[in-house]
């Protein structure tokens, strides 16, 4: 530490060199596993036979294609996309009116709703699944028989960031002022909601939906423990059968999620909306 400080004082260069070395190290840590995965998924040369001269041979997307056209994977994809859709709809139906009414009419409710953002940290899927098996499995077995019984639980874990995003959106447009202005000009409540507030909330609704989609597409614990076949559980089964195709598909999904989420987060930051994915 002392050595670091003296070099820092004698000149800027060594210290900033150290900082960049640290950043490069971090970047390598995040890139190398993905590169290893891409190599395994897209190059048909086993690691044992891989030598420097073979580095550029045997690359193909056939594994990815096999995985994408596998009937079980297609079914899993369809299920997961429907789960995404239903979880988003359920969340918006429950939370949009709640966020609006809380912001414009009952601001004293806000602390209670903010406490809600801690829920998924206290009761994570791995804990709630035991409770669900203990209650719904005995009382309403038909409910858990359907794969769509996952929807309410996925909506539950998506609630914190959905509420945060909607709330941030309402704060950013000064919803209460807009509400009072429209009121004083004689607009009815429904006019205000549908013609003033909702159009202004589109950005935060899109953000919340994208975060929900990423969460649902990646959720494994709850689906697997309730023996439901969604995209992540099918991916694990498929990977055991066809390691190369499984990995190629997994990196495809990860890149897709990362790019999609990254674009959403960036465009929102540019609009001044601070989206908290951590929910805390």
């Amino acid at each position, binding site marked *: *530490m002392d050595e670091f400080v003296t070099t820092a004082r004698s000149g800027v260069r060594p210290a900033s060199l150290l900082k960049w070395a640290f950043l490069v190290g971090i970047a390598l840590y995040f890139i190398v596993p993905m590169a290893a995965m891409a190599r395994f998924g897209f190059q048909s040369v086993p690691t044992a036979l891989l030598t420097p001269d073979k580095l550029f041979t045997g690359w193909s997307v056939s594994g990815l294609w096999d995985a994408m056209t596998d009937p079980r994977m297609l079914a899993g994809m369809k299920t997961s996309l429907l789960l995404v859709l239903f979880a988003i709809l359920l969340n918006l139906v429950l939370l949009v009116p*709640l966020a609006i009414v809380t912001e414009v009419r009952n601001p004293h409710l806000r602390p209670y709703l903010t406490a809600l953002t801690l829920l998924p940290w*206290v009761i994570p899927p791995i804990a709630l699944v035991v409770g669900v098996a203990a209650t719904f499995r005995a009382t309403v077995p038909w409910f858990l028989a359907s794969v769509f019984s996952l929807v309410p639980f996925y909506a539950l874990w998506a609630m914190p960031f959905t509420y945060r995003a909607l709330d941030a959106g309402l704060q950013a447009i000064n919803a209460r002022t807009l509400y009072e202005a429209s009121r004083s000009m004689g607009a009815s409540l429904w006019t205000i909601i549908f013609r003033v507030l909702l159009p202004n909330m589109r950005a935060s609704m899109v953000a919340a939906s994208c975060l929900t989609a990423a969460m649902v597409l990646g959720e494994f*614990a709850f689906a697997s423990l309730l023996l439901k076949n969604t995209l992540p559980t099918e*991916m694990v089964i498929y990977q055991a059968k066809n390691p190369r195709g499984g990995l190629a598909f997994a*990196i495809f999904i*990860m890149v897709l999620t990362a790019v999609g989420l990254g674009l959403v*987060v960036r465009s929102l930051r540019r609009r001044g909306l601070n989206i908290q994915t951590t929910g805390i």
Partner: protein
Amino acid sequence: MRAIFRRENRLGLVVLIPFAAFVGLFLVYPTVVVLLKAVTPHGELGTSALMRALSGTYRTGFIQSILLSGWSAIIGGVIGVLLALVVKSLSRPKWLHPTLDSWSAVASQLGGVGLAFAFIALIGTQGIMTKVFSNMGINLADYGITAVGFWGQVLVYLYFQIPLMFLVMMPAVNGLKTSWREAAAIMGASPARYWRSVGIPLLVPSTLGGMLLLFVNAFTAYATVYVLNPSGALVPLQIRYLLQGNVITGEEDLAYAIVAWVILLLLSSLVLITVMQRRTLRWTSS
């Protein structure tokens, strides 16, 4: 609270009731049932299930989970704080801060099946790093760095822990005002003295809070460990075992008791996190 029930607030009630009913039915009800069943094994009030959940293999599970979550929280926490400090101190490439910000928001969510696959390709028995190191005469397995080894799993967890710590720490690090550092320098304090008397004491509460959050995050991670090593001794895997193989009577009570301990652990960590956050807010918000 009474204001909710006033007449003009009927609208509030109309939107609040479906929401409360939803959370009550799908979250509160199953959780309360588990907690009640944990303290009433075989239908009678008692702590036998809770005690059994902390003995034998289940004790090993808790110890293993706490060690893995703890080490990944400490290492990820330190690297995350350093990353936040370095990024704050470098203003030159303008893209650096926003890019890392977006990337962290994404990467902190990347834990799961895909991440486990990536590390199997890296440090699995057929992994590329395993091969590179063995060509150099180093057997990574000797150091526990395999897809099923302890340090290998810590390495995997860091992939989502470091970005999460960065996200949690950035507000606190940005709250360290340049004017404080300048004031310290004018009064003759060396950079080391500034960090010892101002910087570090201010960052300690948020760093500890952040590390606790990482701990909770790692403790409940399931997909990654399930893919890497389904026969491991971690608590989430033991819950799976009890849930899917509960043929012996009495085993259900054990699952409820383990979940009750997990919830207690998470709840107390979160109370501590909130306390630490209050301390940070005191000086970042002003």
